């Protein structure tokens, strides 16, 4: 039996069935079905990861495979390599964690929640595995639609809904830029398959301007999704208002998928094109990544609302991941992949902590909670461990990822990157520690401190 399409087919089929009959089922049955589905998909993805380590698996949908040099080279494929299948497994793992947490987090939940989460899961897996540029755009949009609906889920607050609206509009405009870019690529090459596109561009290289313009257009949408400076403003709003189990997915993997898509597009299509492109990309992305890392860390330190604080910390760490990509080096990319896994798990833990605080005290403002959280001290210990991981200290995966990125940056003579990584890690970890100390131990001042001047909306950045 073909396993390749299952990570997308299973959740979509279950979601459709739940949408049809879900309202007749009791809540625990819905939860159990959702958990079982995400576990199944996780197992399928792990099996695919193992199988693909022997060689890339290519699956053509409907058996519609383009013949070599045919006049009509069309077909949509999944191209499964260890990196894409591994990332899909990680997506499933976080969705599983998220479903487990929402088992007792939501007091009441309708079938719609599970349906949207499963569609979200399918879209993220599809984005990981696809080998077709237009297909990638479709998964991206499906992911955005599901994420927006989850972001405004069961909320009648205009605040929450406005966050969802900003999220949808910015991401959709980005998606249109990507679509325009891929249309231009298609106009030049007559193909949409990423491997085929890469081959065509190598065989008849276009001008440098064309390559640069189409590359920037195609990745624009994914830069918005990855919340890279200056496209980061939607992320903190979306995180602050989304239900906590959804935040786990937003921070843990959705944002990172934007970077993954950029890396995949670059390596499959543009990496071997014989035009001088690498220096421009390296410089631009190193600067953008560093700006994102430092600014995100500064804003992170200035927050008193825990979910917002963690959202800005995500922006900062995505900046570090962009640096890992921008070095355009396989070892740095390995480091980035390790970092993504480590960061995703740590952020999931921290958001679960935030969810527990919110559930218990009805607020995640460190001045409002101040000292009260002493009664649930184990959560505080968990948050300190999380801060330890965010700081990139051993034995966390972030340490090993960061060390690889750091070493490659020293070898590439970009010495100042070490400082950027240092600042980002110290400030984000420090912010989490400060929050923990004030809300669990009652340390610090009662009054507003200097950094807390940006407390609620509007904090534009």
């Amino acid at each position: 039996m073909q396993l390749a399409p299952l990570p997308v087919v299973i959740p979509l089929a279950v979601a459709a069935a739940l949408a049809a009959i879900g309202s007749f089922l009791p809540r625990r049955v819905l939860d159990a079905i959702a958990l079982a589905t995400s576990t199944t998909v996780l197992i399928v993805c792990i099996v695919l990861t193992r199988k693909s380590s022997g060689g890339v698996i290519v699956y053509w949908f409907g058996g519609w495979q383009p013949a070599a040099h045919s006049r009509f080279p069309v077909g949509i494929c999944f191209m499964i390599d260890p990196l894409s299948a591994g990332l899909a497994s990680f997506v499933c793992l976080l969705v599983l964690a998220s479903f487990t947490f929402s088992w007792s987090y939501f007091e009441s939940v309708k079938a719609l929640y599970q349906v949207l989460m499963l569609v979200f899961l399918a879209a993220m897996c599809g984005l990981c595995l696809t080998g077709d540029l237009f297909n990638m755009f479709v998964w991206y949009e499906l992911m955005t639609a599901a994420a927006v609906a989850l972001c405004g889920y069961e909320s009648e607050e205009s605040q929450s809904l406005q966050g969802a609206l900003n999220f949808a509009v910015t991401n959709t405009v980005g998606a249109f830029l990507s679509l325009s870019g891929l249309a231009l690529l298609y106009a030049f090459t007559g193909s949409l398959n990423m491997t085929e596109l890469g081959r065509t561009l190598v065989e008849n290289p276009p001008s440098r301007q064309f390559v640069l313009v189409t590359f920037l257009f195609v990745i624009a949408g994914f830069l918005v999704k990855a919340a890279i400076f200056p496209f980061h403003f939607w992320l903190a709003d979306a995180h602050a208002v989304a239900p906590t189990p959804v935040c786990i997915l937003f921070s843990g993997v959705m944002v990172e998928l934007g970077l993954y898509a950029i890396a995949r597009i670059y390596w499959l299509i543009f990496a071997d094109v014989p035009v001088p492109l690498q220096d421009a990309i390296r410089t631009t992305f190193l600067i953008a990544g560093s700006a994102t890392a430092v600014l995100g860390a500064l804003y992170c330190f200035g927050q008193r609302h825990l979910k917002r604080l963690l959202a800005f910390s995500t922006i900062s760490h995505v900046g570090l991941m962009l640096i890992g990509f921008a070095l355009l080096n396989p070892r740095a990319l390995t480091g980035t992949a390790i970092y993504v896994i480590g960061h995703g798990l740590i952020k999931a833990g921290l958001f679960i902590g935030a969810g527990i605080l919110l559930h218990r005290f009805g607020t995640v403002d460190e001045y409002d909670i101040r000292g009260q959280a002493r009664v649930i001290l184990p959560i505080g210990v968990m948050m300190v461990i999380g801060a330890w991981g965010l700081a990139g200290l051993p034995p966390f995966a972030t340490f090993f990822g960061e060390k690889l990125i750091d070493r490659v940056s020293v070898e590439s003579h970009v010495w100042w990157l070490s400082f950027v990584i240092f600042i980002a890690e110290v400030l984000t970890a420090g912010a989490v520690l400060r929050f923990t100390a004030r809300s669990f131990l009652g340390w610090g001042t009662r009054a507003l401190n200097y950094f807390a001047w940006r407390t609620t909306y509007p904090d534009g950045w």
Partner: protein
Amino acid sequence: MQLPASHAVLDFSGYAVAVWLFLIGLYGIVSSRHLVHLCLSLTVVQASTYVLLVIIGYRPGLPAPVFTDGVQPGSPAVDPIVQALMLTDIVVEATVVALLLAITVRIHHSAGTADPKEVDMMRG
């Protein structure tokens, strides 16, 4: 085949229209004072991608890719792939716009206004 000059103009104007629609839609989104207006501005931006896709597949003087009587299968026609992409694009964006309008209705319901600036002020 020597093309008449008007085809070159048509070719260029298609791209110009796409760019114009994108920019004017973006301006509408940024300057919007009503959320429904904002959603419709987004559909204007979206229309630019339709125009772009169709103009890319356009071949001067060739028929539509409908191979019935008179047009032999396999004979040159306008590129059907970009038209399929455009249809998919329409479906995807219809979903997003429907979602946005639903959110707008709920914002108006809870905030009593659909002006983004006033909704922002209520939060701050």
